[in-house]
């Protein structure tokens, strides 16, 4: 066990855990933020996506000991106040069905638009292909991201 201090949603969190603990479980089990979900544990489904220094990352593949001073943002910290434009778009387009994958989808989209605010439809598909939705809400996810991206109105 070791003590790690990591920045999550703008707040320093002290985590007493094994260095190899994936960020996903530190966020959920230790800090207690449960908006980030477990889907596969091997980085294939994107359900656990968070932002690390503004870049979308799979928290099941990030070890506590590798976070250092990086700024981690989870779904709970995506909007400073109220709802993020992506969250509003998700509601407007009535995207979620079971909803389980959607926080990961939104974080992946947020990461994409932070790096590429003018993402085209193809660029959106190329990135969002990494996030699995078992309910098949893809066409509405695409519409929601397009409605926020400045590059594909």
């Amino acid at each position, binding site marked *: 066990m070791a003590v790690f201090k990591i920045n999550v949603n703008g707040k320093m969190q002290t985590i007493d855990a094994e260095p190899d603990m994936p960020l996903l479980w530190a966020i959920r089990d230790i800090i207690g933020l449960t908006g980030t979900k477990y889907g596969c544990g091997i980085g294939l489904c994107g359900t656990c996506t968070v932002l690390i220094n503004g870049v979308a990352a799979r928290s099941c593949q990030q070890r506590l000991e590798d976070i250092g001073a990086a700024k981690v943002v989870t779904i709970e910290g995506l909007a400073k106040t109220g709802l993020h434009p992506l969250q509003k778009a998700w509601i407007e387009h009535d995207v979620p069905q079971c909803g389980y994958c959607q926080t990961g989808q939104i974080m992946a989209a947020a990461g994409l638009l932070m790096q590429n605010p003018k993402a085209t439809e193809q660029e959106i598909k190329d990135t969002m292909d990494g996030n699995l939705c078992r309910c098949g*809400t893809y066409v509405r996810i695409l519409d929601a991201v397009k409605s926020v991206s400045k590059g594909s109105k």
Partner: protein
Amino acid sequence: MNNLSRRSFIQLVARTGASFALGSFALIACASPKSSREQAKGESFSPNAFLKIDADGACTVTISRSDMGQGVRTTFAMLVAEELDADWTKIKVVQAPGDSTTYGRQGTGGSSSTRGMNKQLRTIGATSRAMLVSAAAKQWGVDASACKTENGKVIGPNGKSLGYGELTTAAKAIPVPEAVPLKDKAAFKIIGKRTNCVDSTDKVTGKAMYGYDVRVEGMLYAVCLRPPAFGATPSNIDDSATRKIAGVVDVIPIPSGIAVIAKNTWAALKGRDALKASWSEANAAVSTATLRADLKKAVGEHKEIPEGGKVIEANFELPYLAHATMESLNAVADVREGTAEVWSGTQAPDGAQAQIARVLGIAPEKVVMHTMLLGGGFGRKFSNEWIMEAVDLSKRVKKPIKLLWSRECDIQHDSYRPMSEHAMKAAVDASGAPTGWSHQYLQAPGRNGGNYGNNAYLPYDIPGAGMRSGGTGSPVPTGPWRSVEHSQIIVANECFIDELAKAAGQDPYEFRKKLIKNERLRKVLDSAATKAKWGETMPKDMGRGIACFEGYGSCIAHVVDVSTANGIVKIVRMVAVVDVGTAINPKGVEAQIQGAFMDGVSTALKAAITIDKGGAAESNWDGYDWARMSDAPKMEVYVEDSGASFGGMGEVGYPSAPAAIANAIYAATGKRVRKFPIKLEELV
């Protein structure tokens, strides 16, 4: 009021599953201790276990069926709100715990929720509305018939109005009326309107709670090592490495495997991976190849087909399918002396409550079974065995236990959609009219059926059509998978009817249209063909396919365009026309049809569970391939109600989807599909 005899009456009603007569509506109010307490406070009006109106006008509807993304929390609230004439913006929903005594049947599946409860829910809304109107009328000294309701208010003849919240105390004094009429469809203001899911905001902010999000003071985490082959048992268990892992608390063998108890999920997962055990040789010789061979051996004589005509035959092979819900199985159980509190996303919360009570030897009322949101169901989350594991562990460990089935546990220990073989034979005469149809439907596992029955699950008028169901042995655990037997039978039927059309020298749409018996199905087929511009010449390497299905009180037709350019199958466009009788929420229906189509794409082109050495070979999304955003075509979904009574729509969007894809691939390549998932090199 003789509470004891009325309580027995309510239990009788619940057990027999009888629809709620108005008498029992009133009796629930008397017998439910919770609502009695609230009535004593004088703040809210709770005429029934399903509805509570607060002094501030908020109307809380209790939803007794599980929401797995099909939107029952929204549609059930809409049914009540409509007849109540509620202000939709003041509607809240809460989920009922597992308790069939209070809520009746809660098992959610078979696309049966709306069909099973629409009348009861509308009656609750209408009756409560009548009581509010009577209360207002009394206060104003006018006749109830002179009052109307609108958007959460009672409006009097004199222009006065009172919000429902202002009438809660007065309404409680009104005797429950008998036989309140329900609205005419023409008067619907909420039902039939495109409505956003009530849980959208929670689902996009991370506030929505699923089973594994629950936190209980003092809880420990559990993950199990499960057998590598179905039925294998462990021996020589070596947990020495596991126990050295920081955070691991204990290792407990249980009937279904070996549980690692730990202080957090990661320690439990690492502990599980560090376990060593020998496993018995159970079923090690069983594989997809042996199971398929057994199925083919079970194909027998076809039903007699009349002589003289064009006869065609084909065999279709369908694989095992895992449910692979996005949220893998999990439960939190807190078992104490004489009580238990449990949280899980289950399609059968009532069954869970009863089973937990039985196993612990306590009264059902001592078990609080919280029904969480389900991150997908598809039929997996009925059997509740993961809940019973968590309960067992909590009882042994004497602490609350949070149990996770890792993705590997979930895919390798599913209750799979059975593998099946479909031997088909049919004939048309010289004029192209069908003269016979024989379907041998064999699945593993399955009981040996025997004789041909007349129900061949065909919506077509084919003389002498018959299907025989049979099966072979298999150690692979199976269970209901979205649309159950339709996911196999209809896929084979809709592929083969296409081939029969070709044998008759006819267009597959025209051939079906002539034979369809159900007018509602013919209408959706016609509509889909029209909207998809059926009959157009398709570009090179592209094909258009059609298929249809009637079931669950609804009808649907799919027209799918595929491209097979460069040896890759790409679904380019889907047109679906669906008639669910009367759609409560057309937006929700569209979403279901889109989602079910993605199940069609995934199972037509990608997903299969193969059996190797007696166990599932696939363990995660790398082996069990599922559709991604790029696999989704342009989708046009048309909800075209016939006005028939509310039909089911959770499953209707699946069965004709893989067949329409297969038929489109034929149109593009001139070759037929015989195996799913489809590989272009395996077409015949």
